[in-house]
């Protein structure tokens, strides 16, 4: 088992425990790698350097192989994401149906470009390639939900609503 420097281990105790739990659940075969990474991404909004090294160690593969997998798939990433991740479909049927206006409104409302996360950590804005909602374009994924036939004004309402939800929670 990999020996981490004491301060690294102390700073990541929760993460390491989470990984060991996931390994117990999914097994230590290489086939378990992607489910483990998906769960880490879901739980912790990031697949960190320490996470990749510990997962690599538990599955008996080099850390660069873990990074290779993380950087291959759109929905795995080493950078932390915001609380809400918006994936706007940019592929043909959506592009033909006004995706550009949705993109512009999202960037305007959130004050960030695609590939970025708002400074308050609330939103991450990303592109998606065809999300299979071509019959109801333009479409986007908000976290794990698909939203279809989105209009620019709905985007504004959506962002406003999610922001209010959080400030409401803080207010309460």
């Amino acid at each position, binding site marked *: 088992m990999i020996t981490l420097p004491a301060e690294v281990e102390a700073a990541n105790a929760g993460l390491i425990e989470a990984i060991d739990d996931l390994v117990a659940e999914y097994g230590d075969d290489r086939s378990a790698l992607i489910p483990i990474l998906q769960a880490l991404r879901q739980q912790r909004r990031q697949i960190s350097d320490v996470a990749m090294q510990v997962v690599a160690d538990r599955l008996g593969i080099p850390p660069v192989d873990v990074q290779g997998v993380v950087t*291959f798939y759109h929905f795995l990433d080493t950078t932390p994401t915001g609380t809400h991740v918006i994936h706007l479909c940019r592929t043909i049927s959506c592009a033909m149906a006004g995706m550009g206006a949705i993109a512009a409104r999202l960037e305007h409302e959130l004050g960030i470009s695609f590939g970025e996360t708002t400074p308050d950590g609330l939103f991450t804005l990303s592109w998606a390639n065809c999300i299979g909602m071509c019959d109801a374009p333009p479409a986007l994924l908000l976290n794990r939900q698909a939203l279809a036939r989105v209009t620019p004004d709905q985007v504004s309402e959506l962002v406003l609503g999610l922001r209010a939800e959080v400030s409401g929670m803080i207010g309460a």
Partner: protein
Amino acid sequence: MTLATIEAEQGLRAALALDPAGVVATIRESGMKGRGGAGFPTGLKWQLAAEAVAPDGVRYVVCNADEGEPGTFKDRVLLAELPDLVFEGMTIGGYAIGSHEGICYLRGEYVYLLADLEACLERRRAAGLLGPDVAGSGFAFDITIHLGSGAYVCGEETALIESLEGRRGEPRNRPPFPVVSGFRGAPTVVNNVETFAWAAAILARGADWFAHIGTDRSTGPKLLSVSGDVQRPGVYEFPLGVSIAEVIEAAGGHDAKAAIVGGAAGTCVPARDFGRAISYEDVSTGGAVIVVGPWRDLLEVAENLQWFFANESCGQCTPCRVGNVKLLEGIRALRRGELTVQQLEDMVSLGQTMRIASKCGLGQAAPNVLLSIIENYRSEVLGHIPVGAR
């Protein structure tokens, strides 16, 4: 939709009443070819997997629910509306090839279907339709769902298998084919969602019923995803052999300039060819028909799709990794009026090489739409080239 009218578990009961070879024979007799687009005869695929030598007797049935082809959404609708029929088809496939383990590879973008699909599997287990004794037949089969993580190339069956094994979704060399050596080296049948649904229907209604629909070489009905510049985008069922015009008509497309049949990996069919048939012997498709209205700039469409391929290429092989970027740069230069005729010819030559020399179907199909646009709309394309550069 025919599939919605198939009586629940009728196909499974019919299959279990036959021996596995009988099930394979039924599928062969139906003449069904894979509904994902490649068009390999499903019965033959099952037969090869059944006959392949399996170490420890392990074989796998994999449902390819990584529906990533732009313009395709019929599998999403099937999984949402008729998941039982899909899982029933997988169970029949398992029985036919001697597999006890099915895996449904669900694309990450469809994560919102996951809970319902898991619930469906749970219901089927509770009803004895999955588990150690399927429908009291003594046949053991169960299905797990593996969620993808966002990679179009994983729709390619060997890339899908690599992904299942915890690796980058990089397609393998074939041979060996998955029916011989697939997931974990075991014989593996990978079929499209729709293929499994029709397999259940064929067992329920008989091979003859299916074989008498469609054309001689393209039997059966097919689900088509129609989108783009039409009034009523959606999933439509037609017998194979239907003309493109009929499909566009049904969805309410008027004065269409072109139809991209087969999605990003398909081909751009000009209006004058709308009489052509959607079938394996004519215009083949996994189900996408993207209708392009008369006001569209086809090069804008081509640029969008080429960007898609450049972004989704796994990066393994030279023609696809570099070729897609070069085609994209070329389209952009063409749209800016900065391309010469010689450079356009080089792009065509590059596209032709990608078609035959790329390692997998993604790279081989990536130049299709562009090449068909250059071929079918030559004067429109040449119009983007400055007179001095012609």
